[in-house]
């Protein structure tokens, strides 16, 4: 499938170039997490307790940040017309674009999470749990977000609509992500239960996201 490799490489290249989404996402993540201790004050016990929730919320917002431009730029410069008429299946093109987006925006967040966790008084065990849950959970955020990005593709200011559409759908991911991280830190629920639910959500979104986004794109371009 050389068409899919081509679009994957192109999207990777664009997001690491100047003005790309890779750096912006991780900077936004850092800024949001850094603001929290300033807002809450130096209560280390409190910060440690809500740390996983803050990191998850920041990761959720950061991964939405660049998503609205994912299909919109292709639509505005005419690339989407060529993609739609090409021989490559649109669902797989969407999957390739989503995967490239995840690699360039979510993976830097996951790498940064343990270091940012120091601001939130997260210990080694909690940081490890955060990395693991973000690694498993962020693909679900990206692939659910793809649907919103596809629906908002023809709108000039699609970012707002995207957030309104996508954020409610990410509630389950947020619940199980934070629950798994908390379970690893304090219990009493075993880590495996919410973690498996999180894995399930990600697998489901990997299947549903590309199909729904491709259907939305076909409908929008008419």
């Amino acid at each position, binding site marked *: 499938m050389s068409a899919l490799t081509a679009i994957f490489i192109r999207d990777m290249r664009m997001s690491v170039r100047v003005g790309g989404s890779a750096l912006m996402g991780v900077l936004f993540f850092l800024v949001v997490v850094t603001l929290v201790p300033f807002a809450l004050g130096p209560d280390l016990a409190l910060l440690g307790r809500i740390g996983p929730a803050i990191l998850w919320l920041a990761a959720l917002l950061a991964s939405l940040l660049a998503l609205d431009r994912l299909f919109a730029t292709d639509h505005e410069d*005419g690339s989407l017309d060529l993609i739609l008429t090409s021989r490559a299946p649109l669902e797989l093109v969407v999957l390739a674009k989503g995967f490239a987006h995840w690699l360039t925006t979510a993976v830097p967040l996951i790498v940064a999470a343990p270091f940012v966790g120091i601001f939130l008084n997260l210990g080694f065990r909690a940081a490890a749990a955060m990395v693991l849950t973000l690694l498993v959970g962020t693909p679900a955020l990206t692939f659910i977000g793809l649907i919103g990005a596809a629906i908002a593709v023809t709108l000039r200011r699609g970012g707002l609509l995207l957030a309104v559409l996508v954020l409610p759908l990410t509630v389950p991911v947020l619940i199980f992500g934070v629950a798994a991280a908390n379970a690893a830190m304090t219990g009493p629920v075993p880590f495996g239960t919410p973690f498996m639910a999180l894995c399930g959500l990600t697998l489901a979104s990997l299947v549903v996201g590309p199909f729904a986004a491709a259907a939305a794109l076909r409908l929008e371009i008419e």
Partner: protein
Amino acid sequence: MRLSGTDLTCRRGGRDIFTGLNFSVASGEALMVSGRNGAGKSSLLRMIGGLLGIAEGSLDLEGGDSDLTIGEQAHYLGHQDALKPALSVAENLEFWAGFLGPVIPSRGAALAAVGLDTLADLPAGYLSAGQRRRLSLARLLAVKRPIWLLDEPASTLDAAGQRRLRDFMRSHLAAGGLIIAATHAALGIEGAQELRLDQLSPAFAQATASLGDGDALTAGEP
């Protein structure tokens, strides 16, 4: 290979743009579509490419690859150039050649043919409108497709660029290709069929009815 449309109707936003359109183009032939602004030239090309639904009528391709749609066997050159400003000239062409594939071996030759070989490493964001159009023409040379759908291909091209375009079109026709171009200016292809969309719009039919028979042919002019 023969591409034909029978009784085509184009409907946009509940309004008939043209009705009862018939055309037939065979290998080695070109069809020049003309008409006032809004007559449906671009819509016809998008319809053939599969980007716009056919309200009524049918499109048939004899002698093509029956596993592929008409759009998948065609190059669509729209108003937009489908280029990414952050990528270099060579990277842009490399992407489209890889995505649309199978690639004709010498990709550099396609750049040289449009006169952009010296600018291969320049980011596409620095190109002028005419150079951008040349770069998107290179796509048509780098990947072989029997049908070319060209929407105002000569717009923004200088005299030399228009000569090159004419040569590309002639050699495509000589190789058994098929061209449908929407254009205001003559592109200099001998023996090209002409299709005037003005006569096919419902508004024109009304104007004709009110003017009587004698002025029928001038009523559609802007």
